């Protein structure tokens, strides 16, 4: 079976590009995969697999291809507002944006979209993305969905998606032995990714500043670019962290990323709002056996409690975060236990071969499942008709119920 594979790939810098670079070799061991390329003719294949995320630069061309040929969508983010804004407003198609917002939010949505176009209100993909996910068109075009979390599965169902959904855990990287970077800190706490409000950096800085009052040797490693408009320096100054306690690295290459993660005692991955994304960064940390602290939202909330301390996004967020950091700083046994559990979770759930096998199963079901379902339904219906069972009768309902129980004929 031949599969056309649509995804950003390195050297593009995106988590989904890294994901595909990691997955593709394992998939190619199992299937005939042809990688589609931007601005090239769509490859011929039995089925097309589209990786869709919220970044319009990385995924706009993939949605364009999906519009021409429906197929299985790997939905890396559930909230696609930024993507749709890029595909409409970004292409000078204001009407497209109005229509997308009206479809999801009715008249109110359309009016809000007018407000965005007229620059009377802040962009909704920044201010209210969770309220207007704008995933509707992509869901309409998807003949099946691959998701990484129950959270995205549930949101897709809540949005009315009725097609098949396969949940496939994010595969972990099989990394070579990593030499930890030489960094001070006892403990050394790491945060990886863009430095901004949605990564809850303000809350992290406050909790860390408090931790440092009693633990002056503690260090916070911030790895990633500072987002425009986020004044990190001012915040550090206000918390007395300007000169000490913070270690900064901007965008780092993969090898350096692993070395920095390996150096950490604890990794913090906070997020709100969530777009439904899975964090490749968390997967890397777990595969290194790092205890992690996460926000109690979306996919992060689905991590087992014995590998992740979860911080609710509420009024007590900073307090809870401080308590989590203090516990992990204080208790070696808790850290050791979480570390062992993380390694076991990665082995059990996030094995690359397992993920690739699940993809093959999903692809095979997507490519031929409907034909099989129709054939079974046809056979059962024909047999029922032969013995006088009428459509709509109690007997026909019983047959339908039994078929549904074992997921045949749908």
């Amino acid at each position, binding site marked *: *079976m031949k599969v056309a594979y649509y995804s950003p790939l390195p050297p593009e810098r995106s988590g989904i590009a890294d994901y595909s670079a990691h997955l593709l070799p394992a998939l190619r061991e199992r299937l005939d995969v042809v990688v589609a390329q931007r601005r090239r003719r769509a490859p011929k294949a*039995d*089925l097309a697999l589209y990786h869709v995320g919220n970044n319009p630069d990385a995924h706009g061309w993939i949605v364009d291809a999906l519009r021409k040929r429906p197929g299985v969508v790997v939905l890396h983010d559930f909230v696609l507002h930024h993507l749709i804004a890029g595909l409409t407003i970004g292409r000078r198609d204001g009407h497209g944006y109005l229509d997308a917002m009206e479809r999801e939010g009715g008249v109110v949505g359309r009016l809000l979209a007018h407000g965005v176009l007229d620059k009377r209100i802040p962009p909704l993909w920044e201010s209210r993305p969770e309220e207007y996910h704008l995933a509707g068109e992509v869901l309409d075009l998807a003949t099946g969905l691959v998701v990484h979390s129950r959270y995205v599965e549930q949101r897709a169902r809540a949005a009315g998606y009725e097609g098949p959904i396969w949940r496939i855990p994010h595969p972990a990287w099989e990394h070579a032995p990593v030499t930890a970077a030489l960094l001070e800190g006892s403990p050394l706490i790491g945060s990886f990714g863009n430095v901004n409000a949605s990564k809850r950096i303000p809350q992290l800085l406050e909790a860390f500043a408090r931790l440092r009052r009693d633990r002056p040797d503690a260090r916070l490693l911030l790895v990633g670019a500072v987002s425009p408009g986020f004044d990190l320096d001012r915040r550090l100054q206000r918390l007395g962290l300007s000169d000490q306690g913070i270690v900064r690295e901007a965008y780092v290459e993969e090898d350096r990323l692993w070395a920095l993660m390996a150096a950490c005692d604890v990794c913090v991955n906070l997020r709100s709002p969530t777009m439904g994304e899975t964090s490749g960064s968390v997967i890397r940390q777990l595969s290194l056996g790092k205890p992690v602290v996460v926000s109690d939202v979306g996919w992060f909330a689905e991590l087992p409690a014995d590998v992740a301390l979860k911080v609710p996004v509420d009024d007590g967020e900073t307090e809870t975060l401080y308590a989590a950091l203090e516990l992990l700083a204080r208790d070696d046994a808790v850290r050791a236990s979480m570390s062992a559990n993380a390694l076991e979770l990665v082995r059990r759930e996030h094995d690359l071969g397992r993920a690739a096998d699940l993809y093959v*199963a999903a692809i*095979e*079901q997507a*490519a*031929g*499942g409907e*034909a*099989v379902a129709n*054939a*079974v339904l046809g*056979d*059962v219906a024909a047999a029922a008709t032969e013995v006088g069972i009428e459509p709509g009768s109690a007997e026909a309902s019983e*047959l339908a119920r*039994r*078929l549904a*129980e*074992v*997921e*045949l004929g749908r």
Partner: protein
Amino acid sequence: MRIAVCAPQVPFVRGGAEIMADTLVDELRARDHEAELVTVPFKWYPGTRVLDQAFLWRLLDLTESDGRPIDLVIATKFPSYVVRHPNKRVWVLHQFRQAYELDRTDLGQFSEEPRDRALRRSVHNLDRIALGEAQRLFATSRNVAERIERSAGLAAEVLPHPPQELPYRNDGYGDFVLSVGRLDRAKRNDLLLEAAALDPGLRVVIAGDGPDRERLESLAAERGLNGRAEFPGRVDEAELASLYARCLAVYYAPVDEDFGMVPYEAFLSEKPVLTTTDAGGPLEVVTDGRTGYVTSPDPGELARAAGRLREHPDDARAYGLAGKELAARVTWDRCIQRLLA
């Protein structure tokens, strides 16, 4: 208790699974349970027939019979475990092997066409649902249990079943290697014939009948084994016990077999078993140099292993006796106690 034992039947075909289901009913009755065999014909081809026929089991209502409740169902082989019952226990002898380990082999059924690939996945899905409903899930061997774990993510308790009742005995270690079972390609009797072709001192008796018989007889003739390869066909219980009693050793090396009763039958006759490294279930009881020989699936190696036993009958006896100790532990008392617990 009123217990329905569920097993499919392939009309005019009878093998180990059918014997096991019949015996289970007899053994339950012997322990004062009301037991009945419930069976539905099974045809797995062409196309989606495998699912249609599996679905027939879903339509059965075994919650009661003649106004009295059925307390328990014990389902055995695919697709009988698709049956529904509030107290369903499944003792898996076989899943639909063409959808699993036999896929993409000469013995497979599903092509590379998208519809066939999806059909195979539908069988997996059906297994996941039907086996997942079981109140308790048993597998006849570790091999079967591991396959269920891999494919459906379900944990099954390993519960081997005893072989058929025969007047087992030992009349010495004769000059022939015995193969017993239905003659189909999966049983790999051609490997035994090729081994005999390499060793003029090796005589083989291949008991049983099946679709591969003609090919095997032709192969024996082509290899000039006249007189050294016998095909007595299907034999009765007395004759089978006699063959076991007189043979040097028993050959049993199907491809990735689920379980197979033949090694236990051999052991109860104090005979060693010759098998191969890829035979699956038999490897759980056949240990190289302890209860028989395990070779690569290569005629030369197999011939050499049979030759060693011929030259060292004391080894054959010692291995057979060691196997008998294993077989003696597998009893119906223990099986039924665990099934009904």
